[in-house]
């Protein structure tokens, strides 16, 4: 068990791809940290540098106070779970799990004892004599976990360990991995492109993009106070609604104008963000989470409202997702598009979106109470929880934060 520290780590591949740029992270002893980001953001490279499978171009990585830059994977005392499990097909489950121990010349009875312990923890005891090919995907995944925990290493490294499982199993294993990590208490670095995994599993989440760390924080902080437009649009599903807005200063305080509609900004929101008044008369990017929008009919007590037309609705049982077209200029900077698009295949669509430029209509996604009666083509009013509005600089993409005081 140990803390892992990235100190200004750089990685440049032979083909001049700058995979990781000036990465500094501190991962505390026993902590579960998730590295998350779209494909190609350098998260896997960062993990492999901790494992010793990738050379570190510059900077320092230390594990438990020891700089490991020049140590072999063997000397680093780590365990890694690979995306495709990487089980040894010619060995039985128990030999797979005990492989690392046997390499370290651990006495036979100790190996057996440890393997039995790991198998019990993972529910693999009945399968110990089977070969990997005789196991289901979920069982193989457990064997890979078993191989990692059996050695009680200083650090667990997990590279998208769940992405080969089907949706249901993934949810189940998510809880399982979190449970096991909690039980053995080993520092864990977990890489995924799935922000839901990141949010549900991590003690802290580090969002990366193009080799750079965007923000590292607890999940709730990441969600409620994203550092920039990229993090704002990447974290959360459905994604945050982000539109251009003009900041206006009137007698009644500060308001934002979206299209031809106005939303008053509550006084304490402005007070907590001293920088906001500086934007008076200028444009900024306004973010609204879907759960902070509600069907106007269901909310009688006034509040700030936006008019719009319903495009489609998705009834999920516990809630209704309503896609509502509002007259407003959407923000389609690269930050937002890249954050919203996780799947590689969607990149083309995203590129199209960028090219088509800013229309004057935006689609807001609202998370409505299931009792809402909205139908497509209805003209409705959206009630906006203005306390929860988020503001970003349009140029830099940086959040206009609440000041510390």
């Amino acid at each position, binding site marked *: 068990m140990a803390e892992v520290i990235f100190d200004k780590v750089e990685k440049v591949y032979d083909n001049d791809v700058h995979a990781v740029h000036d990465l500094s992270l501190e991962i505390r002893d026993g902590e579960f940290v998730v590295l998350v980001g779209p494909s190609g953001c350098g998260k896997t490279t960062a993990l492999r540098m901790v*494992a*010793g*499978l990738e050379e570190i171009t510059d900077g320092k990585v230390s594990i438990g106070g020891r700089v490991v830059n020049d140590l*072999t*994977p*063997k000397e680093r005392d*780590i*365990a*890694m779970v*690979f*995306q*495709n*499990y*990487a*089980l*040894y*097909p*010619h060995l039985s489950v128990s030999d797979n799990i005990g*492989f*690392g121990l046997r*390499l*370290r010349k651990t006495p036979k009875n100790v190996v057996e004892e440890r393997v039995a312990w790991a198998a019990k923890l993972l529910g693999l005891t009945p399968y110990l004599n089977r*070969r*990997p*090919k*005789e*196991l289901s*995907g979920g069982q*193989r995944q457990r064997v890979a976990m078993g*191989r990692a925990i059996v*050695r009680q290493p200083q650090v667990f*490294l997990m590279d998208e360990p769940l992405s*080969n499982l089907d949706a249901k199993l993934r949810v189940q294993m998510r809880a399982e991995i979190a449970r096991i990590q909690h039980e053995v208490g080993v520092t864990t670095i977990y890489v995924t492109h799935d922000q839901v995994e990141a949010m549900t599993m991590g003690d802290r989440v580090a969002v990366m993009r193009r080799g750079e760390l965007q923000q590292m924080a607890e999940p709730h902080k990441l969600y409620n106070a994203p550092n920039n437009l990229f993090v704002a649009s990447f974290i959360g599903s459905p994604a945050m609604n982000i539109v251009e807005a003009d900041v206006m200063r009137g007698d009644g305080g500060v308001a934002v104008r979206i299209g031809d509609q106005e939303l008053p900004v509550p006084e304490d929101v402005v007070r907590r963000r001293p920088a906001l008044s500086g934007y008076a008369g200028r444009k900024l990017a306004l973010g609204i989470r879907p759960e902070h929008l509600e069907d106007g009919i269901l909310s009688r007590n006034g509040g700030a409202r936006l008019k719009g037309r319903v495009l489609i609705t998705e009834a999920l049982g516990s809630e209704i997702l309503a896609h509502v077209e509002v007259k407003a200029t959407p923000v389609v900077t690269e930050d937002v598009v890249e954050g919203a698009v996780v799947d590689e295949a969607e990149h083309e669509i995203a590129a199209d979106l960028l090219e088509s430029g800013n229309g004057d209509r935006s689609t807001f996604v609202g998370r409505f109470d299931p009792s809402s009666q909205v139908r497509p083509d209805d003209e409705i009013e959206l009630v906006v929880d203005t306390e929860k509005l988020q503001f970003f600089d349009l140029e830099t993409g940086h959040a206009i934060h609440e000041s510390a005081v």
Partner: protein
Amino acid sequence: MSTAERQAELALPSVAERRRKKRSGFADNWWRHLVALIGVVIALFPVAYIVSAAFNGDNSLSGSSLIPRQLTLDNFRSLFGTQRHTTGHATFQNAHYLSWFGNSMIVAGGTALLTVLLSALAAYAFSRFRFRGRRMGMLTLLLIQMFPQLLAVVAIYLIVLNTGDVFRFIGLNTLPALIIVYLGGAMGVNTWLMKGFFDTIPSELDESARVDGATPAQVFWGVVLPLAAPVLAVIALISFISTLNEFVIASVILETQQKFTLPVGLWQFIDQKYSEHWGPFAAGVLIAAIPAALLFAFLQRYIVEGLTQGAVKG
């Protein structure tokens, strides 16, 4: 035409169809059997001749029929007996057959084993490591392979002759020299073949083993080689059989009866007009085929077994 007639006419084809379906077993498949039969005949015809000749008392080929007039084991006896044969340029004892057989096993077995080992090492490096000259190295291997070894016979003879002056044990008329020459001969193809196979073994397996604490050598012996068993078996088999058959280089390097391999030794039985000993020759060939067949039977298990299944998500 009445309705009934029309119905009958409509019904007819379906009856015929049904009948054809019933008979499809042979009617549709007879040609497959024919092809298979022709294949079997082509494959077995030479074998039949050799077997026939081996058990035939007659020493000539032209006069003998496929089915021997009288069965005899004389040919086999003469291989292991002390009877003297005199051919045009040499007098020799058939008792050397055992030495030839032994030499062939040593040379073929040694070549097979070392070929597998050497090309596995080379292929592992080419498949897993990135180093300067990797591409050039592979291309060179391929290029060298394009020239038949036969072209180099003179050069090989001279090299071996001269090396023998310094290192007696790999000079002319020694088995190690022959093995070394054979090793060089097939390295390229085998390395390429094996590299292709290694490339299909996910590199995550190596990485996983390294993280588990394995040294590169342990990764090679403990993870990669067991998984490559099928290709190792194929290469061992191919090189064993081709070495067992090789004549030209063996006849150049080996000089004395005690050092001959089977092809060189047996050749003496039939290399003279009017005094060929086809009977003992056939008997000798028949015995020589046994180890190759046994090796094949033994290695088949590995060739068929797809060991990489289940390594990664399938």
